[in-house]
């Protein structure tokens, strides 16, 4: 599916600052059958935007703002072709990948309750079956409820609560997979689904401006490579998913990371539009 994305981030400050550094992970990946034809990222105030590729293969755009300002607007637009189905990458895992995607991490810590939860889904000798069962179990166990958790919530906490958003669903499933020695990684990106947006609106659930931002999970299955699963919707990755970054957990892939000098308070506003043939939608 051919999708166009416009991701606008506004950093506002309660008073003027004059030294800020910002990193953004917003460029759709060229991997797993997905192709990003065009990407641009501009800032206001204008400045040079530089890039690097991080350890997980994500493209990071970054810039500094060394002039007095109380607002920065970053506009990222992309034009991307998503594959009809997720194509597992052939690439074998490096020793570091294997370590990173099997070891508990900050958002997906080792936890007794998660281990018990994972064990209930175990299919002896078949890690794909196990991963699929974990996806379904996470989806059943957790209730989608914005506001129940925040950006710092760990898998152990959201599982205990039984509620959360896509980030929490993903972390629970990742922690569970790792506890059963199935390598798992966090995927951040977008989900284009006009139908689900409509359903949510009809159900009276507020759909925020950045609702198309989404997170899900890749699991690595021996002999098959990465398989991409979405525990929030109990679904494999389809052509409605746009992959932007992968890592051990959310901490490796935040869309924005920045630092500034001064005592000003920062407010962040994000708006995401995903279009295909004139349709607009967002959903997490």
């Amino acid at each position, binding site marked *: 599916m051919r999708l166009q994305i416009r991701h606008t981030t506004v950093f506002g400050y309660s008073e003027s600052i004059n*030294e800020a*550094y910002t*990193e953004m992970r917003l460029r759709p990946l060229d991997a797993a059958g997905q192709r990003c034809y065009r990407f641009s990222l501009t800032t206001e105030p204008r*400045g*040079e935007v*530089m890039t*690097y*590729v*991080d*350890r997980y293969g994500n493209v990071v755009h*970054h810039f*500094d703002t*060394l002039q007095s300002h109380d607002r920065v607007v970053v506009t990222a637009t992309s034009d991307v072709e998503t594959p009809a189905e997720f194509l597992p990458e052939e690439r074998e895992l*490096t*020793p*570091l990948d*294997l*370590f*990173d995607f099997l*070891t508990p991490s900050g958002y997906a810590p080792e936890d007794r309750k998660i281990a018990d939860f994972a064990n209930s889904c175990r299919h002896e000798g078949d890690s794909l079956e196990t991963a699929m069962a974990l996806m379904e179990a996470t989806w059943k166990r957790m209730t989608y409820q914005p506001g129940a958790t925040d950006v710092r919530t760990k898998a152990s906490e959201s599982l205990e609560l039984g509620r959360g958003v896509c980030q929490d669903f993903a972390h629970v499933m990742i922690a569970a997979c790792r506890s059963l020695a199935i390598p798992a990684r966090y995927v951040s990106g977008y989900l284009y689904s006009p139908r689900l947006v409509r359903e949510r609106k009809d159900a009276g659930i507020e759909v925020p401006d950045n609702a198309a931002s989404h997170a899900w999970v890749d699991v690595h299955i021996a002999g098959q490579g990465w398989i991409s699963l979405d525990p929030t919707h109990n679904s494999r990755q389809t052509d409605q998913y746009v992959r932007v970054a992968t890592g051990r957990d959310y901490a490796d892939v935040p869309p924005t*990371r*920045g*630092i500034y000098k001064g005592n000003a308070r920062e407010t962040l506003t994000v708006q995401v539009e995903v279009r295909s043939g004139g349709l607009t939608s967002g959903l997490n």
Partner: protein
Amino acid sequence: MRPFLLENDYDIGDFFDEMFAADGSPRSHYRAIDERLREMTRESFEERRRQADISFLYQGVTFTVYNKEEEGIERIFPFDLIPRIIPQREWDYLERGLTQRVTALNLFLHDIYHEQRIIREGVIPAELVFGAKHFRREMVGINPPRGIYAHIVGSDLVRDRDGNYLVLEDNLRSPSGVSYMLENRQAMKRIFPDLFQRYGVSPIEQYPQDLLATLRSVAPHDVPDPTVVLLTPGIYNSAYFEHTYLARQMGIEIVEGRDLVVHDNHVYTRTTRGLKPVEVIYRRIDDEFIDPLSFNHDSMLGVSGLLNAYRAGNVTLANAIGTGVADDKAVYAFVPEIIRFYLDEEAILSNVPTYLAMREQDRGYILDNLDKLVVKSVNESGGYGMLVGTQSTREERERFREMISAVPRNFIAQPTISLSRHPTYQGGEVYGCHVDLRPYILSGERVTMVPGGLTRVALRKGSLVVNSSQGGGSKDTWVLNH
């Protein structure tokens, strides 16, 4: 007037004594100093000692102690007048051994941040390297100039009961103490000007210039006349004296994080005449604090955006980020294998035998022998986080037993090495104190060392801990040119 040196029946004890052979006669390379000391009266020795103290005080040669009773106290680093002497052939051997070791460790660092061959081939366990506190994922794929990560290494050498040199640990982050090495020499030259000529002591005064040449040799390629600065955490750091001293000796600027700014991936110093580019940073700030954008967000000491400028190849950091994984005390146990793997050679210098608590059979042995072993936390340095079994209390041992069982990866243990001793003048008498030796190895265009290093002395009678933060002192170290 009585000769003082032997008046208290110097006791060699059951140790290797650096100065005296087992029969009590001075070793040949100490003979001249032995004679000189026998000629001296206690009064004249005391007088020279006083001169040394005053000179250290005037020079401001101090360090800061961190403990509960004396928080942030600045002390003069205690200095002992009797020099430690190393014959040339012994030094040649040490130099070969350390060059080999540092060369292999730099290859190891390059490998673990790139192909990870040593892990693929099963020589060292993945969790040991990737689970190390100082392994930095940010460094994966980054290519520092000349492939060098640890430009300045300080390895601690000790000698066992038979006089064999052993490497006790390597320091690949910001090894300190070199200013004491230089100041000790200056003081000795002032106090015993005639001795040096006569003795044939190799010079070490070129160290700052060697260091500067090393730093310049690893500048980003296209810079003909690179600007080098020293980045300090500031006056509250225990080694701040050394930072100012080295900067002055090298003729470079000493800066704090707030003096630097990154713009469009280039680093500048803020001067009264605007921004001035910087190409090489000799940094004495730990990884965690060096760039709040990439590491500890709350750090006020670092420079935002520095890692990105470094990754872009516009500035060199010495040492590189992520070198601490190679001085992790569990990784240390594998250095002989690391040398074999990259250089296809046997290690010239041996390690102290080391038990890894992460290995089940080693752990059992450690827990059964806590009263005999020295247990070390793998990430700590400066003598902190350590249990000296033979001198420990039952409570201390129980505390370590719990910590080891909780996180085995974080602990190693070694047998108590009977460290060599050296005659040392303390409180009016000369007695044997345990010593170690920290030479400084520079890696740039080539690997170089000044002949010598910092000899640290455990001044407390019977103490095995030589760290300055733990009541240690130091001596001038003479490497002979014959």
